[in-house]
């Protein structure tokens, strides 16, 4: 099909789809008034029965904990898939040689950027750990904090320290952490079967609302997801950085 014919067909279909969707919007609940009992019940259950102050984290790791198990495994498989895809063609030389070459070529970034990147790594790591462990209390949780922690690596990279990136990222350690995070979540899910009545049963004492260990398994799962997300995102990002190193060497 020619590009023109496809555009005409596409625009026609988009107009039809748009009309149907706008029609469907008329049947949605009134904006500002959520329908159904869960909007009211879920925060009450989390606060009164699970002693979790942050209802969103509570739902993610308790009421919908089984879904999050699947989500966690999706992330695990995606990190694996991206790594396998990007490592397939290592005929282009080794990453170590490419990193050493990049190092010799000297920094391509301004000194101010390098200094700022180095200064921000520490606070970013601290903020990431804070967000992971306080998931049950304040906005945040394992997913958000994990991405922050992986972002610290990206800061090192943005600061032009490509060789340092290769050093602070021992691949085997990241891979093991990725697997450990996924395994820890699965084991806590199965602990419900062993010590409780069902998979994902919240078997730990709920503690006092507002304390760091409130919510039973919620903070435990939050930390497990934090480890998994940090390792998974680090693995994905660093595989892309490797590709770019190989590429910049080839083009010179």
């Amino acid at each position, binding site marked *: 099909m020619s*590009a023109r014919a*496809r*555009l005409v067909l*596409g*625009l026609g279909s*988009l107009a039809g*789809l*748009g009309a149907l*969707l*706008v029609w469907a*919007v008329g049947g*949605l*609940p009134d*904006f*500002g*008034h*959520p329908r159904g009992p*869960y*909007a009211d019940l*879920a*925060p009450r259950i*989390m*606060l009164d029965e699970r002693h979790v*102050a*942050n*209802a*969103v984290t*509570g*739902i*993610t790791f308790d*009421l*919908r904990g089984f*879904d*999050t198990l699947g*989500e966690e495994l*999706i*992330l695990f498989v*995606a*990190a694996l*898939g*991206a790594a396998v*895809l*990007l490592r*397939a*063609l290592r005929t282009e030389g080794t990453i170590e040689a490419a990193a050493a070459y990049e190092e010799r070529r000297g920094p391509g970034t301004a000194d101010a950027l390098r200094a700022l990147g180095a200064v921000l790594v520490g606070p970013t790591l601290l903020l990431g750990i804070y967000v992971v462990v306080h998931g049950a*209390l*304040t*906005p945040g*949780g394992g*997913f958000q904090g994990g991405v922050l922690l992986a972002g610290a690596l990206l800061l090192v990279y943005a600061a032009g320290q490509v060789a340092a990136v290769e050093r602070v990222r021992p691949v085997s350690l990241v891979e093991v952490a990725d697997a450990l995070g996924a395994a820890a979540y699965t084991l806590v899910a199965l602990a419900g079967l062993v010590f409780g009545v069902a998979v994902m049963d919240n078997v730990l004492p709920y503690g006092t*609302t*507002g304390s760091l260990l409130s919510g039973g398994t919620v903070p435990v799962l939050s930390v497990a997801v934090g480890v998994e997300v940090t390792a998974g*995102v680090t693995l*994905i990002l660093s*595989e*892309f950085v490797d*590709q770019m190193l190989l590429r910049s060497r080839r083009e010179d």
Partner: protein
Amino acid sequence: MLAYLVAVWLLLAGLYGVITSRHLVHLVLCLGVMQASTYVLLLAIGWRDGGAAPIYADIPPNTPVVDPVVQALTLTDVVVEATVVAVLLALTVQAHKRFGTSDPDALGALRG
């Protein structure tokens, strides 16, 4: 009401980008725009007029809050989108290496 229409608009704009895309990275990002419409839709359905954030760290326990269930769903949505984009971009890198082009039209024929 406007938020629902924003979701529709994001879906259509992203789909238009996918249809007319001439570069695989552009195509993947347009897919991200399409998925962003689901975030807007989910959060709009859960919005409550005058509702606070569903976090009882510093508000009285009987304060009306917005629906936290759809917010948790949105969190899942964002994570799935990030993983899908990562794998698609990895495939894009491989496609460019193998065929020397990132134009989806030039990748018409499947080759082993």
